[in-house]
């Protein structure tokens, strides 16, 4: 037990993989047992992660870390370093939460090679947790790439009709982005003499600015593909549509988050000047992603593809928040990552439940589902509302913070971009509710070949048990978001301070002075450039 006490993170990261390998060793005939074993293991990891990690953060100290020298790679020391702190605590918990939940939610969906599937799932969990916790860039890189393999198999083996194309596309797309990044990583490690992020940041800051920019671009492209940021998003719809439900949930729920997480953990702190230099193009691409993803989602005929494109739009919000370089926007992005994990994960689960029954996902094949499956409809509606950011659900808080953060951003583009991005809120409602109307409402579709006709049963107890915690979280995050962002506030503030992010831009509204009317009572401020301090009116606390 003493080993466990000093190595909780090691256990959390590698226990799933060990169990996975064990399951792989079991004969194929024990598939059902393997499935159960995998689920119990994932559940245990969830319980332990909650107990250990929340316990630590409750005491005020939010960091759990393990560090030891590991090996040297061509003379460069690689550390075995795992950390859970304010920036990744909730993403780690999101992962440990979604894995068992998804296993339970797709219990009946997978029909063949149950054991292999469970093993892949557990290996994937190790990859994700490792990537989230690794505090050494080489170590991180290993997990980052390692994660691809189980996901590749999940899509390639258990996917839809075009699974091979989708799996290859997913793998090659991501890999090609990462290769450039690996070059940058090795270059910088060589300069720094190691893969420790702190040392590397220091080395990076000593480099000429244009070199920093190139390095940042290499990092950013790798992470942006994962997010995915327009125009690097086209692997996503294929991967989502072809992946089995469980794959889609984890892909949307956790893998995409790693892109955003990569920015806030590595790309931005290591190259703050370059990151701010490219804040505008990043924000522009984010705004395009928000609007573009929504417009394309609107014209989709396959529900799953619609949800996939909605991910592009929602993750655009995350990137906009990060690019704003404000506390409000960055915290909004942190929350929005969790929101998206919960809401979009839930949407994929729900679409999977519908597909399992009707064997189609085409919107036109449905109509009047509400009559046949009232419980399912209620859950779908709640998740839809969360996805379109209705107040008191999680979606609202994240988007609201991001938009306000972007609007207040110290960069000149903030106000325009934020205003344009709000149109994504309308379009989000358009594609989600229009789909909801066509699938669930209206007269029952009596066509014998259609989807509605094949719906005989509403959700069973297992499926309800999967959806209930999601609904609780949707409301909890919407009503008391502090639970989920309190720990990241201090690291985010520190990050932006270190980056010397420009102060937020306010409108200067000067109070009337009765003795001597001020001549400069201008309504609009004189548009100071980035980094320029703008005096805020009284009672307005200036924050970065």
């Amino acid at each position, binding site marked *: 037990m003493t080993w466990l006490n000093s190595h909780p993170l090691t256990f959390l990261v590698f226990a799933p993989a060990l169990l996975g390998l064990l399951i792989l060793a079991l004969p194929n005939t024990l598939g059902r047992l393997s499935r159960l074993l995998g689920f119990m293991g994932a559940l245990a990891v969830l319980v332990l992660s909650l107990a250990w990690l929340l316990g630590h953060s409750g005491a005020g100290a939010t960091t759990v870390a393990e560090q030891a020298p590991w090996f040297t790679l061509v003379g460069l020391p690689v550390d075995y370093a795992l950390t859970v702190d304010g920036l990744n605590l909730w993403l780690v918990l999101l992962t440990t939460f979604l894995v068992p939940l998804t296993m339970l939610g797709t219990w009946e969906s997978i029909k063949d090679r149950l054991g292999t599937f469970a093993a892949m799932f557990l290996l994937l969990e190790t990859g994700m947790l490792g990537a989230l916790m690794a505090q050494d860039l080489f170590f991180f890189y290993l997990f980052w790439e390692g994660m691809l393999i189980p996901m590749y198999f999940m899509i390639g083996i258990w996917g839809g009709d075009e699974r091979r194309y989708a799996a290859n596309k997913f793998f090659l797309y991501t890999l090609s982005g990462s290769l450039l990044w690996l070059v940058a990583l090795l270059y910088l490690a060589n300069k720094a003499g190691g893969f420790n992020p702190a040392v590397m940041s220091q080395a990076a800051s000593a480099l000429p600015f244009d070199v920093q920019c190139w390095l940042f671009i290499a990092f950013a492209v790798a992470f942006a593909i994962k997010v995915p940021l327009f125009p690097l998003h086209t692997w996503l719809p294929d991967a989502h549509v072809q992946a089995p439900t469980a794959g889609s949930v984890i892909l949307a729920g956790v893998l995409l988050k790693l892109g955003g997480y990569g920015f806030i953990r590595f790309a931005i702190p290591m190259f703050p000047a370059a990151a701010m230099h490219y804040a505008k193009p990043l924000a522009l691409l984010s705004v395009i992603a928000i609007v573009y993803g929504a417009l394309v989602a609107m014209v989709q005929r396959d529900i799953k593809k619609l949800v996939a494109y909605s991910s592009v739009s929602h993750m655009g919000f995350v990137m906009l928040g990060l690019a704003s370089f404000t506390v*409000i926007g960055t915290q909004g992005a942190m929350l929005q990552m969790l929101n998206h994990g919960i809401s979009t994960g839930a949407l994929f689960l729900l679409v999977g439940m519908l597909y399992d029954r009707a064997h189609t996902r085409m919107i036109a094949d449905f109509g009047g589902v509400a009559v046949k499956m009232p419980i399912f409809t209620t859950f779908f509606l709640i998740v839809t*509302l969360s996805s379109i950011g209705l107040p008191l659900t999680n979606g609202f808080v994240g988007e609201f913070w991001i938009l*306000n953060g972007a609007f207040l951003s110290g960069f000149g583009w903030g106000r325009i971009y934020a205003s344009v991005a709000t149109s994504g809120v309308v379009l989000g409602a358009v594609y989600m509710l229009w789909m909801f109307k066509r699938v669930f409402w*209206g007269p029952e579709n009596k066509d014998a070949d259609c989807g509605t006709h094949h719906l005989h049963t509403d959700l069973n107890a297992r499926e309800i048990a999967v959806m209930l915690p999601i609904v609780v979280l949707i409301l909890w995050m919407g009503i008391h978001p502090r639970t989920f*962002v309190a720990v990241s506030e201090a690291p985010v503030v520190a990050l932006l301070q270190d980056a010397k992010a420009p102060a937020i831009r306010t409108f200067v509204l000067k109070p009337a002075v009765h003795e001597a009317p001020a001549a400069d009572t201008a*309504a*609009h401020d004189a548009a100071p450039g980035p980094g320029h301090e703008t005096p805020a009116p009284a009672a307005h606390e200036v*924050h970065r």
Partner: protein
Amino acid sequence: MNKYFWLIPILPLLGAAFNGLLGKRVGKSAVTFVGLGVVFVSLLLGISAFFVMKGMPDHRLVLNYGEWMATGSLQVPFGMVIDPLSGTMMLIVTGIGFLIHLYSVGYMHEDEGYARFFSYMNLFVFFMLTLVLGSSLVLMFVGWEGVGLCSYLLIGYYFETDFAPAAGLKAFLMNRVGDVGVAIGMMVLFAGFGTFTISDILTQAGHLAPEVGFGVLTFATLMLFVGATGKSAQLPLYLWLPDAMAGPTPVSALIHAATMVTSGIYMICRLAPVFTLTPITMDVVAWVGAGTALFAATIGLVQRDIKKVLAYSTISQLGYMFLGLGASGFAAGFFHVFTHAWFKALLFLGAGSVILAMHHEQDLFKMGGLKAKMPITFWTMLVATLAIIGFPGTSGFASKDEILYLAYLKSPALWAIGVLAACCTAFYMLRLFTLTFLGKARDPHAHDHAHESPTSMTLPLALLALGTVLAVWLGWPKAFGGDFTIEAWLTPATTYGQLHAAHGEHGSHPLAWVLASISTLLGLGFAAFGYFSYKDGLAVSEARAAKFPFLHRLLLNKYYVDEGVELYLLRPIRWFGNVLWKLFDVILIDGVGVNLPGALARVFGDFTALFQTGRVRNYALSMALGGAILLYVFLK
């Protein structure tokens, strides 16, 4: 007592949760008990809170319940403010809301979704109270979006039909467009004042120099007004309200007449000191209001569906309210909210009573002669009709007259538009009333089976009629010997935080008499015109329609705005989405960017594979060639 006031909004929420989760299991009487009970207790608590507030020296009761969303410099607490404005609105929502809940017991008693209906209605009351009582713009926005959701759910209540879901969707999306305006307006105000708390914004705004108004604040208030045009169905975002009549009639009365659609007016009153600083916005508000009042009223002239007539009437009356606000008559505009809540709710519930009696027939042309069959409905509808056409002495007269008077002081043209709209109102209301209750039955079969509604429906009608009559005491205009009580009452709220409240120009009493005489006489004239056109059936009006076929078709088809929006806005957007998808994603990014390199790599691979012939002599040849080249290079 104060420590229970948080229950005012929360009780209806609990009622909604109870009826939503357990409603199907517990049976109808339990649903009724909970659904009505929570609103009633809310009303009682509201009355008590109202009097507590009245007893406070500054007429403000501020209650805070901790932090909601805080990060960086952005703080939004959960908090309620009860002042004369929000207090009055709260009582309208819970009071009239309760009567409509009571009415629904009778109206919905045969419906399978009884529990679902009351769950949504309670949820609506919760969100509406959040909108009204919320201490910050963000909480107001919570309510703002929340009532939109309930409106969506209740319009689409008959979800297994074709039209109701479409109407619900339209309402929600059009409101969302407006909500974006509100969101942007809020962001601008936050960037300017550094807070979302309404009282802090007003205090800061009260200290601003007037010149400030022309820039940032004008933009902010215009954006907020965009939201108001959505929620309160003004030009150009009014299109959803007529369709919203697809919902059950009590919904139309509560949400689409008495409360939710007046949120836009409420918001402007709430932020009156900020709007006062922005004369451009005030002009826009006044002109949009006047334009909408007339525009909608002309459509109302020819509609056949009894609820559609009332819907256009609501849009038109909401236009009056905005006209009043734009003319700086915050009290006048809000007074019309108050009187309209009574008489329009009454009109809708009366219409519902008629519709039920006629077995869900909503076509005016098939009604007639119901006076004898439904005396209570007849008399209460008469009270409401007299009020809405501004018959002297009624509450509608008082509030409309005050608005028209202020409009005249702002611009005689606004007054003229308002009077014209009033003439239309008088005509279509008498048309509706005559076609429904007077003359001969045009559908004898339905007429034979018609009967007066049960007590649970007629009692609310009677109480609303009483309210319609009594409402006048709150604001009998000064020009006619009253003291327009509501103005003095609301002033602390509409001028909150202002250093020196502006005192509007108040003209002279003779002017008020002249204006009122003109508008009243014209109104009565058109009312008589409406009555005589329809008292003997449809022949007169059909002959008239035949004389002006183009105008008649234009009005009947609502100026073809819906068709135009579909053709010139929605279709291009869908087309654009398709182009983006097919051109960008499929052809450009995936085709050229991803699959082309993939294909090239394959071609290149196939090409190089040609050299892997597996024949030793080929390899030997290439080795020899390579060696020769190397030798040449190094030895040269």
